[in-house]
């Protein structure tokens, strides 16, 4: 019987020739990571268990990205705990404020996670790395603590849903819209406990940035992992970044899928997810007049260089509407520098945008753009739960960077097509 890419990677890391959905396996972990919110609990559990050394100092990564640069004293103490543990264990990878970035953008960028890896992370968006053809899933702090000690994790082999995207992408439609549309179709628990394998000619032609965005939001459909079979695009991305060997796995022709869903993308327009669930999606043309107070462009979902370029294309020569705060957060120092070099910062500053150092910040209502009661934001982030970005009576609408940038100019949710002189949107 054939196996899916997810099953193949799990089998290889469990030391089995074959695995099948439903089976519980103990797997060897290539990379385990935690952040300034989840790692403090894990470090505490590690010490409580009497452990002295992590199983492999090259395979444990701690990233302080959620509340950094430290937003308050308690957050400072949490970040310090990670720093102290890193020093104590002499961990290979550590990125201080000034060289850090949002974990799920930073780790692929630095070549720390690679195709064929098995990655667990104490952060739900760890599923992002599936875009590289890795098996990657979010776990809790206790799982992370156990993996730091043993180098292993227990996993139930998930069933896989295959998603096939065909046709031609419409203008302003990106990976973000494909995944929002998919979540809208299957619901926030539509892939509960399952692997989501993204396939089809649209995915084959999608750049890495769009692939990362899609795998990133698999969790928003309840998925265990999102995954894309690696190809030439993947090879180009990792070739100069990898410092160790990696392996391309693929799905067998006779692999078993619990469901196959096909989408003709020519019917998909830019999507906006309404409060308070990512499944509440509408096409941008169906929205009507929804005034906004803030726009956030950034996060592990859409804080990559390509996202910055898209935002700049729309913002060039334009300004954020009066009383509309536009906050742009490049996800890593590299994205930050590259955006600056390409002149995108001038465009952003001319548009009255505030440009922030990399941080998860406002995505989870941490800092750098928390909403007041009754306020509304359009964000390129991944969740729009009650109180996600601030006051429980605030609202978050999820969209791609083009829609977010256009909305900032319009002062309401809208498309670049609604801007005056849309022909003047330049290629940058």
């Amino acid at each position, binding site marked *: 019987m054939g196996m899916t890419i997810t099953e193949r990677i799990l089998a290889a890391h469990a030391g089995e020739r074959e695995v099948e959905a439903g089976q519980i396996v103990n797997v060897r972990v290539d990379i385990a990571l935690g952040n300034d919110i989840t790692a403090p*609990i894990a470090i505490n559990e590690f010490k409580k268990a009497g452990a002295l050394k992590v199983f492999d100092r090259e395979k444990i990564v701690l990233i302080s990205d959620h509340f950094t640069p430290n937003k308050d004293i308690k957050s400072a103490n949490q970040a310090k705990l990670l720093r102290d543990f890193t020093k104590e264990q002499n961990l290979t990878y550590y990125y201080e404020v000034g060289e850090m970035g949002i974990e799920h953008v930073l780790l692929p960028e630095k070549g720390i996670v690679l195709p064929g890896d098995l990655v667990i992370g104490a952060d739900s968006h760890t599923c992002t790395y599936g875009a590289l053809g890795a098996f990657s899933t979010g776990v809790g702090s206790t799982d992370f603590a156990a993996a730091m000690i043993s180098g292993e994790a227990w996993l139930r082999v998930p069933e896989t849903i295959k998603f096939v995207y065909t046709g031609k992408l419409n203008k302003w439609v990106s990976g973000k819209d494909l995944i929002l549309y998919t979540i809208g179709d299957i619901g926030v628990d539509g892939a509960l406990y399952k692997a989501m394998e993204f396939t089809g000619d649209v995915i084959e032609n999608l750049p890495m940035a769009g692939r990362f965005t899609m795998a990133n939001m698999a969790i928003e459909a309840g998925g265990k992992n999102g995954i894309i079979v690696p190809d030439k695009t993947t090879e180009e991305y990792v070739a100069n970044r990898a410092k160790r060997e990696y392996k391309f796995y693929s799905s067998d022709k006779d692999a078993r899928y619990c469901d196959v869903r096909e989408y003709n993308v020519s019917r998909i327009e830019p999507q906006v997810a309404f409060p308070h669930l990512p499944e509440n999606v509408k096409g941008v043309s169906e929205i009507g007049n929804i005034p906004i107070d803030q726009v956030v462009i950034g996060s592990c979902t859409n804080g990559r260089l390509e996202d910055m370029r898209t935002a700049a294309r729309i913002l060039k020569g334009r300004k954020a509407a009066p009383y509309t705060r536009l906050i742009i957060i490049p996800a890593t120092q590299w994205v930050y520098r590259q955006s600056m070099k390409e002149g995108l910062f001038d465009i952003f500053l001319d548009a009255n945008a505030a440009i922030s150092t990399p941080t998860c910040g406002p995505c989870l209502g941490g800092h750098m753009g928390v909403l007041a009661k009754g306020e509304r934001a359009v964000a390129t982030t991944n969740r729009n739960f009650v109180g996600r970005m601030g006051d429980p009576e605030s609202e978050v609408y999820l969209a791609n960077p083009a829609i977010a940038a256009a909305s900032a100019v319009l002062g309401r949710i809208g498309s670049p097509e609604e801007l005056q002189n849309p022909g003047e949107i330049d290629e940058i």
Partner: protein
Amino acid sequence: MRFKGRVWKFGSDVDTDAIIPARYLNTSDPEELAKHCMEDADLSFAESVKQGDIIFAGKNFGCGSSREHAPIAIKAAGISCVVAKSFARIFYRNSFNMALPIMECPEAVDVAEAGDEVEIDLDRGEIINHTKQKTFSCQPIPPFMQELVQSGGLMGYVTKKIISSP
């Protein structure tokens, strides 16, 4: 294990931001987290919840973030068990790893109302709603999960394995 308590009823897709908002995640102190448990879903919860109370919820309970602060807050608030139609994957995993008893039982959730007196027998997989005078049998816990629980959660399991390996 047996629990007896009063029902708190919630709907579907209760996310981890509702269970414990990120604005309180600058600490992992259980007592501190318990003060804000379920704050954005029901402001009265943290003040009125009593030791031993039981949460009943719809599908996909605990969706969203991987934060273990969510089951920690629920446990520290005094909740003895969570019964839901289904659980989000990471929340499900976290609960077993830190030994917060949870059960999937859609029928029992449909019938339960806030304030009902219920009794739960974890080993037999049984929920008795005394107020409604109904008994439900639930999905048995998978054998591997039972082993985790018997080891006192994942850390106990891992420590035991390392000690017993040659």
